[in-house]
């Protein structure tokens, strides 16, 4: 069985993704952690393109009548998982962001406080109960 044009196309796209990822890692704009995700995705694209029989075989096993549907399903599942992962990351980052802003405000306020015993303290404090 000769290689089909569509397979060539998919492999070219996968290569393009891989090169793009390497390019951004080189420029320090993409963390290795995330680059791995995309590289795995690129490889995963190549598999069904290179071995269409494998897809047919799996579909047959799983009693899926239309084999390409299996690819769509797998792709959608991966994309959904990635999106969820990013939602988690965003939540974590926004929490950290908020904490940083609060901490910065607290520190700046402490700098503005007159030193203890300077004679013009507006409040009776400086016995902070830390922790």
């Amino acid at each position: 069985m000769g290689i089909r044009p569509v397979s060539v196309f998919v492999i070219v796209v996968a290569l393009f993704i891989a090169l793009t990822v390497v390019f951004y890692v080189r420029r320090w704009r993409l963390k290795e952690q995330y680059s791995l995700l995309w590289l795995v995705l690129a490889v995963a694209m190549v598999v069904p393109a290179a071995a269409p029989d494998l897809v047919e075989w799996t579909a047959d096993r799983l009693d899926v009548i239309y084999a390409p549907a299996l690819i769509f399903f797998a792709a959608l599942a991966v994309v959904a998982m990635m999106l969820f992962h990013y939602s988690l990351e965003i939540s974590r980052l926004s929490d950290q962001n908020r904490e940083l802003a609060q901490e910065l405000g607290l520190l700046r306020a402490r700098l503005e406080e007159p030193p203890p015993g300077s004679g013009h303290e507006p409040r009776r404090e400086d016995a902070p109960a830390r922790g």
Partner: protein
Amino acid sequence: MSEGDRVLVIVPAHNEAEALPDVLDQLRRHAPGYDVVVINDGSSDGTARVAREAGVPVLDMCFNLGIGGAVQAGFKYAIEHGYAIAVQMDADGQHVADQIERIVAPVRAGECELCIGSRFLEETGYDGSFWRRLGTRYLSRVSSIVTGQRITDATSGFRAVGPRALRYLAWHYPSDYPEPESIVLLSRHGLPIREVSVRMQPRQAGTSSISGLATFYYMAKVSLSLLLAVFKEGPTGQAA
């Protein structure tokens, strides 16, 4: 009042330079026993300047965190400075300084950890727009069901918290519209809640953070967080 009973009034302010001086002036005159901190939540007007001119300490948030993040910064400040009780009060003049003692008293007496100043517990002559009232009633209803106790003004931002609630909320405080959700969270962690009737003023300046279509989005979002709050874990290793 013993040293451990010091009360901090937290005034979160986002672009409230117009109303703030009067609010701080009222605080100085009608609530002189309380310390005040203004949280300047990324304002682009002179909010921080007018607060400093009034001689009040200011916490500057370097960008707008929203009401939840701002108030939580105040809670952290309160803990850092050894306050036992913290009061949250709006900067727009809606909350009245001479009413603070009413919401602080039950907390100081140890009757509750959260005391909400309610506009609707008794007829206080307060009337917002129809939709606002409806929204507040709806959220109060949901809060009542989830907490199993009657809540009449779940969205009131005029409230006092005691030492245990203070520790909990400094650790975790909801971000967007935190008032109703914090009621559920505190109640779920066994911290007693009370409401007292207070008199409020129509806002002097600025507009409400919620209006029109956004109200419905707000309602849906808050309803969801109220229900999810039931399942949220408490701080690990810290009994609430």
